[in-house]
C-alpha cells in the first residue's frame, strides 16, 4: 500500500495536513454522501480531495477526477428527471459514482499521504486505546510482508511448473498450493515479530512517546471549516 512507499521522505516542499484533520474530512464526506438530491453537497464533498491533490501538485489526478465527476453529476441531475429506461439506468450508475467517488478519493489521499507512524501518532494523540493501535500498526506493517511472501511462492509454483492446465487437481487444489504456504510463513514471521517487539518493551503500561511530528496549522483550520460547512449543509438538507 502507498503508506509504505511514500513514507519517510518527509515532504518538505508540500503542505502537511495533520492526519486527524484528514480523518475528520473523510468521516464528513462519508456521512454527507447519504444525501439524495442535493447535488451541490456532493460537489463540495468532491472538491475537498480534488483540491488537496491539486495542492500536492498531483494535477493530472485532480483534473481527470474533476472531469469524470462533473460529467457524472451533470448526467445524474438531468437523467433523474427522465422517464425512459436507459436514462434511469444511467442515473443509477452515475448516482453510485457520485456517492462513492469523493469518499474513495479522500481515502486514497489519506492512505497515500500519511505514513503509518504519523497515523499512529495521530491515534495516540486522540487517545485511542492501544488495543486498537497495536493491531492497526502490525496490520500495515504486515501488508508488504504478505506481498513479498506471496510473490516468492508464486515464483516457486512457476518454477516447479504448477499451474492450472499442467498439474492434476482442481482449482481448489491450486488455491491450496498458493495459499497454505503463505499462511504458514506469515504465522512464523508473526511469531518472530512478536518476540522482537516484546523484547523492546511494547505493551508497557507507560504512556508512549512518538517522534513523529504532527500538529495543526492554518491549512487544517481552512479544511476543517470547509468540512464543517458541508456537514451543516447536510443537516439542513435533512431537516427540509
Amino acid at each position, binding site marked *: 500500500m502507498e503508506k509504505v512507499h511514500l513514507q519517510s521522505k518527509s515532504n518538505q516542499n508540500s503542505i502537511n495536513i495533520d492526519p486527524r484533520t484528514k480523518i475528520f474530512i*473523510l*468521516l464528513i464526506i*462519508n*456521512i454527507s*454522501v*447519504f444525501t*439524495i*438530491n442535493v447535488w451541490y453537497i456532493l460537489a463540495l464533498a468532491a472538491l475537498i480531495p480534488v483540491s488537496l491533490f491539486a495542492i500536492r501538485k498531483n494535477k493530472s489526478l485532480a483534473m481527470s477526477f474533476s472531469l469524470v465527476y462533473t460529467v457524472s453529476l451533470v448526467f445524474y441531475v438531468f437523467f*433523474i428527471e*427522465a*422517464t425512459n429506461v436507459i436514462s*434511469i439506468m444511467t*442515473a*443509477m450508475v452515475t*448516482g*453510485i459514482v457520485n*456517492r*462513492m467517488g469523493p*469518499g*474513495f*478519493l*479522500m*481515502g*486514497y489521499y*489519506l*492512505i497515500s499521504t500519511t505514513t503509518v507512524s504519523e497515523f499512529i501518532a495521530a491515534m495516540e494523540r486522540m487517545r485511542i486505546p*492501544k*488495543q*486498537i493501535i*497495536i*493491531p*492497526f*500498526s*502490525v*496490520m*500495515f*506493517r*504486515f*501488508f508488504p510482508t*504478505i506481498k513479498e511472501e506471496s510473490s516468492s511462492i508464486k515464483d516457486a509454483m512457476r518454477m516447479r511448473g504448477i499451474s492450472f492446465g499442467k498439474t492434476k487437481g482442481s482449482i481448489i487444489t491450486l*488455491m*491450496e498450493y498458493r*495459499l*497454505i504456504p*503463505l*499462511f*504458514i510463513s*506469515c*504465522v*512464523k514471521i*508473526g511469531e518472530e*515479530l*512478536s518476540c522482537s*517487539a*516484546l523484547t523492546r518493551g*511494547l*505493551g508497557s503500561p507507560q504512556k508512549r512517546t512518538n517522534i513523529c511530528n504532527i500538529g495543526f496549522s492554518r491549512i487544517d483550520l481552512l479544511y476543517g471549516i470547509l468540512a464543517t460547512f458541508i456537514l451543516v449543509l447536510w443537516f439542513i438538507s435533512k431537516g427540509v
Partner: protein
Amino acid sequence: MKKKKLQTKDLITVGVFTAIYFVLFFAMGMLGYIPILFALIPLVLPIICGVPFMLFLTKVDKFGMVTIMGSLIGILMVLTGHTYMPLIFGFVFGLLADLIFMIGKYRSKKLSIIGYGVFSMWLLGMLVPFWIMKDAFEKIMLDSMGIEYTRTVLELFDKVAWSFPFLAFLGGIIGAFFGLKMLSKHFMKAGIA
C-alpha cells in the same frame, strides 16, 4: 498462567491475521466488480477467508480479539471509501461472533462454525449504500414506469437483497468447514495451529 486480559502478543496476533484476512478479501473482492459475479460475493468471500479465520481462532482464547478484528476490518473499509457502514457492521458482528465463541469457551467446534457465519455478515455493511439508493429510485420509477413495473422490480430487488444475509451466513458456515479441514490437513501437522 492463562491471563484473562488481552496481552500484547494477542494484539499482535490480531494484527497479523487481520492483515491476512483483509488482503485475501480485497484480492477476491476485486472480482466483484464484474457485474454478474457481484451476487456471488457474499457467498464466495467468506468461504475463502474461512481458512485464515479458523487458523486465527486456534490462537484466540479470550474475549476481545475477534471484536477488534471486526472493527479493524471495518476501519479499513472506511479508509478505502466504502462509507462508514462497514465500521458499524464490522464492530457489531465482530462482537456478536466474539460472544458466541466465548460461550463455547473458545473451544467448541460447533460454536466456532456458527460464530464465523455470524462474523461473515459484516460484509453486508458494504451493500447498505445500494439499499439507500433503492428508496430514491422507487419514487422515480413509480412516477415514470407505473405500479406494475415498479412492483416487479422492487420484489426482485428485495428477493436478491434479502438473500444476501443468508448467503453471507451460509458462506461463513461453508468457509468454517473448509477452514477446519485445512487445519487438520496442514496446519496442525505443520505445528502452527
